[in-house]
């Protein structure tokens, strides 16, 4: 089961969930993922070892994909 989450003013919003057993759910997630990237969000997959990976395509096997805004020097 994968979850696409966007960090926003509500705390976070779960945009879509997908699973291997649910036909079409991944395609729907890919659509939502692309929409968010086009809107300027960046995608990150947190790893168990305390790192995170930048992704530009939705990984089907990820449990959690977090969409965040860009950072900048203050």
């Amino acid at each position, binding site marked *: 089961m994968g979850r696409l*989450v966007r*960090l*926003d*003013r*509500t*705390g*976070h919003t779960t945009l879509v969930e997908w699973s291997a057993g649910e036909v079409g759910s991944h395609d729907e997630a890919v659509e939502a993922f692309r929409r968010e990237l086009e809107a*300027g969000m*960046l995608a*990150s997959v*947190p*790893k168990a070892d*305390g*790192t*995170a*990976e*930048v992704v530009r395509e939705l990984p089907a096997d990820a449990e959690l994909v*977090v969409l*965040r*805004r*860009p*950072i*900048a*020097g*203050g």
Partner: protein
Amino acid sequence: MAQARLKAPPAPPGTPRRPGLEEAAALWWRPEVTEATLRRDGRRWTIWTAAIAVVFTAPGVGLLLLSPWTLPIAIGCFAHAWIVPWLQARRGARSVVPLGSARSRTEDRTAEGVALGLLGDLVAHRERDLLQTTGLVLQRGRLGAWLVGERGALMVRPGGRRVDCWCVRVAEVERLPAGDRVAHLLLALREDEAGFAMVANLGFSGARWRVRRGLAESARPALAEARRTARS
């Protein structure tokens, strides 16, 4: 696309795209941050601090040698020699804003709770406890042990003696909960540590005790923990 990216001038043709953090890839003209560049920047800060101390102390000593009656002016010189480095270290320490601190921006309590829930899921038990008590997230990196706030970050260099203070924030277009701002910076740091340091601006680099003095009492245990991590 992202605001930050729209402002960036396009890279010259043939410039290879930097892998890792997207924001760092947009800053194609900035040099990579490495152990060596951090050491160099640290040395520059030390020289600068020493120069300020000498520039203000020497006239004070000179005046006293000329006449003891110049003591009030000499005291003014010595005060400058002390206060300028102190202000720089304080500004560096204040570049990080701990979650829940007096400078923290919390507006919607419900959203804050939701944001903290996700942030809690992103960190391990030890870091979660530290976050609860100090408002800062500890992240071990290759360049040092980082402390991330809702704005800004501190990095304790390996060995634990020097702290680099970084100005960095979410380039937000809407009011995000404070917990979300920490999560943004933490994820970016985890994605690409060198890229994170490349995007952030180094505001100060100096001895740990100097930065500690500028931190709120509640945030100091986080610096002690980061020092332990940087030494291990």
